[in-house]
């Protein structure tokens, strides 16, 4: 039983660690802000889930204790990560950050930027 | 580890002090915050470093010194109160005096000073 758990712990930790690392690699490697955002938002969250699961299993290894409160961190991250990302991308739009050249839907980007700032008057119909 | 810890404390102190010597309120606030970190680490270190000995009874048999930890807690809270006050004071000073220089007025440029002394 414990042996299985140990394997599970190792697996989840490695999985988590890898995703965390990949998320951060994405942060460094990606060409523009918008693409950089994806790594941390998703991979890191999943990576955290992995590590937290590892922790849950680890602390549940000893008899009569069941350590599940790491769930709370997972829930919290799941709730907040999209909001952080949302706020960040809104800021990026507001700051008119350049998207990498071959980004499709440049018009949508422009429209989004216009709406973020004061110029995006709401009387101006968004769909042309 | 002690050497590294001391190095960090010293470096944080130096950075904090340098910022506190700047002429605007905001860098001073930042410097003060940095200095507080250094001071807190210093107080903490006065109880000597301990890797496994969180001071909760029954979790270890070699506890860290709890007293400096309690002192740091007090210092953190007081430091927070003081920083908050200073920050707001900085706002007030900017509002009242029209600039954010710590002296409430811009220092005269150097050449002007020289002229005056002539």
């Amino acid at each position, binding site marked *: 039983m414990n042996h299985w758990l140990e394997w599970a712990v190792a697996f989840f930790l490695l999985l988590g660690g890898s995703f965390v690392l990949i998320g951060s690699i994405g942060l460094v490697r*990606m*060409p523009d802000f918008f693409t950089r955002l994806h790594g941390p938002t*998703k*991979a890191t969250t999943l990576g955290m889930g992995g590590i937290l699961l590892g922790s849950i299993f680890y602390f549940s290894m000893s008899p009569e*204790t069941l350590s*599940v409160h790491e769930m709370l961190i997972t829930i919290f991250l799941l709730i907040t*990560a999209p909001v952080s*990302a949302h706020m960040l*991308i809104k800021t990026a739009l507001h700051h008119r950050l350049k998207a990498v050249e071959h980004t499709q839907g440049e018009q949508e980007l422009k429209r989004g930027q216009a709406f973020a700032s004061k110029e995006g008057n709401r009387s101006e119909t*968004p769909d042309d | 580890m002690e050497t590294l810890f001391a190095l960090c404390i010293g470096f944080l102190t130096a950075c904090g002090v340098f910022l506190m010597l700047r002429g605007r309120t905001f860098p001073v606030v930042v410097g003060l915050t940095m200095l507080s970190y250094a001071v807190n680490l210093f107080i903490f270190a006065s109880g000597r470093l301990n890797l496994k000995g969180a001071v909760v009874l029954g979790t270890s048999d070699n506890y860290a010194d709890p007293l400096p930890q309690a002192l740091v807690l007090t210092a953190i809270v007081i430091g927070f109160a003081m920083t908050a006050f200073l920050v707001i004071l900085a706002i007030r000073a900017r509002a009242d005096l029209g600039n954010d220089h710590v002296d409430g007025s811009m220092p005269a440029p150097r050449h002007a000073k020289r002229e005056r002394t002539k």
Partner: protein
Amino acid sequence: MRMTPRFSWLPTPYRSLLLFVIWLLLNQSLALLHLFFATVLAIGIPWICYRFRDPQPLIERPGLALRYILRVFADIITANAQVAVLILGPVKKLRPAFVRIPLDLQHNLPLTILAASVSMTPGTVSADIYPSIEHLAPDEPLPQRWLLIHVLDMDNEAELIATIKSRYEAPLKEIFQC
């Protein structure tokens, strides 16, 4: 669509349930004392917090909601694998894009869940929901709103829009009956 709670003493039952569970999670115990406290807090806290909550549609189809959650979890895992590959793969080959999706949902809670789901799943991040309604007069009709998303690697815009609308938006409409 219901906006007003069924019981005034238990305005947000699912939230209460969540809190009940969380208290037990936090204390890692099923002792009677903790169950008692969990109950008290699960009722007390939502009751206090109810005033700090804008009226939202209530979950009408809990079963569906559970399914939705599981689906999103599954999507997160698959999506992450894809994103990981993209991140580690050649950067030059990425086809990033901005896409806007017309929204049928109107209320904040479902919209938020939709945007969050989109952010957590296949290579997309919700950028904005516009136009914002905070500048609308109370009696003004709601305009068509859009969800702007950024896609890390887009294949086919129409397909993406369709997937999102069917996979996430539609179930949400169903769950909240709005």
